[in-house]
């Protein structure tokens, strides 16, 4: 029972079609109080549709949504104990910033004075206490974003939905807002459901991430979990960078890597670039015991600031390796090398992979 009390948002077997297009298929997800969960996926994966279903702007074809134990599936948006930060902010252009923020309290029964006091509090919280008299169009993108945030938290919802709220901001500001947003969330203790297509953003902010693809949730877990142990090939390729290598087990249970030409129908091992070691010759590779080794040649070397990406062609696979710092020993394109991989660092996706 204690666990059930903790569940704030419960999504059960939700499906949604638009005409013939299946936007969401059997989605289930539970979110706890105070948790920061990101819905992460490429555009068209259904993450925004799911958010709009939770908010009540769309009705599901099947399934239920409940918030704090109450079934809200049939409730219109204004009866749901949650608020939304819209992608384009959706600030009312005909109202001042203060009136925008006071809009929620006014509509839900607060008096004028009470509403403006709470609006002021919320604006102070996002650092815009001085700007109440302005109109949204007189403010910068980052400020508008904060106003939208203040407006959404002023009603003290149990749950805040954020639809790619940072996507319109430039990189510098986006990084700063990520930190501010996370701090704010911890301070006010509201659960956040955060839609984004930016995995770094999701990783930086979330307690848990739900990776979505083609209307389904592929995996839910902490950032470290989905990076280290991706549940599906899609997650492995979408989160971070990875080389996917077909493998088979030998008689003694050890893994060997299968050449590209024999790849179909095999299990696949996920290799992160930081786990691929490069040696000048077989002898160097043998010094470390238990390494899987493959001979190959360097195809591309690309240094980007603090890291160097090396692409090695081995057994017909293009394997991505990464070294910190500029590569000193002068790896050249075309040079013969040996790849060494610690099997401990391979994450195995069992069963025939497409």
């Amino acid at each position, binding site marked *: 029972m204690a666990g059930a009390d903790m569940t704030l948002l419960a999504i059960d077997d939700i499906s949604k079609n638009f005409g013939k297009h299946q936007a969401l298929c059997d989605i289930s997800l539970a979110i706890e109080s105070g948790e920061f969960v990101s819905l992460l996926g490429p555009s068209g994966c259904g993450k925004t549709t799911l958010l709009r279903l939770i*908010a*009540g*702007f769309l009705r599901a074809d099947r399934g239920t949504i409940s918030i704090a134990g109450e079934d809200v599936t049939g409730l*219109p*948006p*204004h009866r749901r104990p*949650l*608020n*939304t930060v*819209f*992608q*384009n902010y*959706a*600030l*009312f*252009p*005909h109202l001042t910033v203060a009136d925008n923020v006071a*809009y*929620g309290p006014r*509509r*839900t029964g607060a008096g004028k004075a009470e509403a403006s006091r709470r609006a002021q509090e919320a604006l102070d919280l996002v650092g815009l206490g001085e700007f109440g008299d302005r109109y949204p169009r007189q403010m910068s993108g980052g400020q508008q974003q904060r106003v939208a945030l203040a*407006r*959404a938290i002023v*009603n003290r919802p149990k749950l805040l939905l954020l639809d790619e709220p940072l996507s319109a901001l430039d990189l510098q500001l986006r990084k700063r807002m990520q930190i501010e947003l996370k701090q704010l969330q911890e301070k006010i203790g509201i659960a956040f459901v955060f839609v984004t297509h930016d995995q770094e953003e999701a990783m930086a902010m979330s307690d848990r991430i739900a990776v979505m693809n083609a209307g389904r949730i592929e995996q839910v877990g902490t950032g470290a979990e989905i990076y280290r142990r991706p549940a599906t090939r899609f997650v492995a390729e979408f989160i971070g960078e990875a080389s996917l290598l077909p493998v088979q087990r030998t008689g003694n249970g050890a893994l060997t890597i299968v050449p590209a030409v024999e790849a179909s129908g095999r299990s696949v091992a996920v290799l992160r670039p930081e786990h691929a070691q490069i040696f000048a010759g077989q002898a160097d590779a043998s010094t470390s015991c238990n390494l899987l080794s493959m001979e190959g040649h360097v195809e591309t070397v690309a240094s980007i600031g603090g890291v160097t990406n090396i692409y090695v062609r081995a057994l017909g696979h293009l394997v991505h390796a990464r070294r910190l710092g500029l590569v000193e020993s002068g790896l050249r394109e075309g040079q013969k090398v040996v790849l060494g991989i610690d099997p401990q660092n391979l994450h195995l996706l069992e069963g025939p992979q497409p």
Partner: protein
Amino acid sequence: MTASRSVILGLVALPLVYFTAFFLVPLMTVFVASLTDAQQGGMTFSNYARILLDEYHWSVIAVTFRLGILTTLICIVLGYPLAWYLVRIVKWRTWRRICVILLVLPLFTSNIVRSFGWMVLLGRNGLVNETLQAGGLIERPIRFLGTETGILIGLVYILLPFVVLTIGNALAKVDHSLEQASADLGASSASTFWHVTFPLSIPGVVSGSIIVFALAVSAYVTPALLSGGRVTVLAVLVFQQYSSVFNFHYGGALAITLLVFTLLMIAIASLVSRLGAR
């Protein structure tokens, strides 16, 4: 810079000359004539004094503006629901297209033709009276022709499409996410309408009202046909002076009076809307 200047001159010269010669100068001529004494020449305000110090003229002005204001109000009251219906309720594109064509059709038809239709409908034995009598609502035919009511029906009819189109345009531009934000913040649909959608459609209401008012107070054909000479509006007086009395001085003063009152009302309307938008 010089190339650009000659390009601008080339583009602007003809329209500027044309509108100066056949628009500005004629209007100035009227203005000057209205300030000139008919007999002696020389500047005088007597033409205006004749209008503004006379009870009859004030009653004509009052009728003109009463008709203008009532027409505008009724157009908004009838036009807003229709615009809402077309933009928000109709889902079937073909039907909306047909509706828009029906709406624009009257605009493409002469005022004469449309007023003529009402002359037939509103006559003693016209369809309206016959229907009302057959329905037992009235015993004797109501006189519409030659009354302000008749003119009002005709003016509303002629100007309604303008309001529907401008309000409809404004409604179509309202961002749905604003209404969703309002619902999200706890407002019911009625509350969302009053606090978000309606305020955002006000520019459309105001610009529609300005067009309707300006056209209603300066309308000549509709009042002339539906009044049967029994109700006089300002435009009718102006026309009489120019076409049969040939008094350009007094007629000019009437024309300028009509112009000034129209522009004044438009200025007030746009001022009110600008204050409202603050």
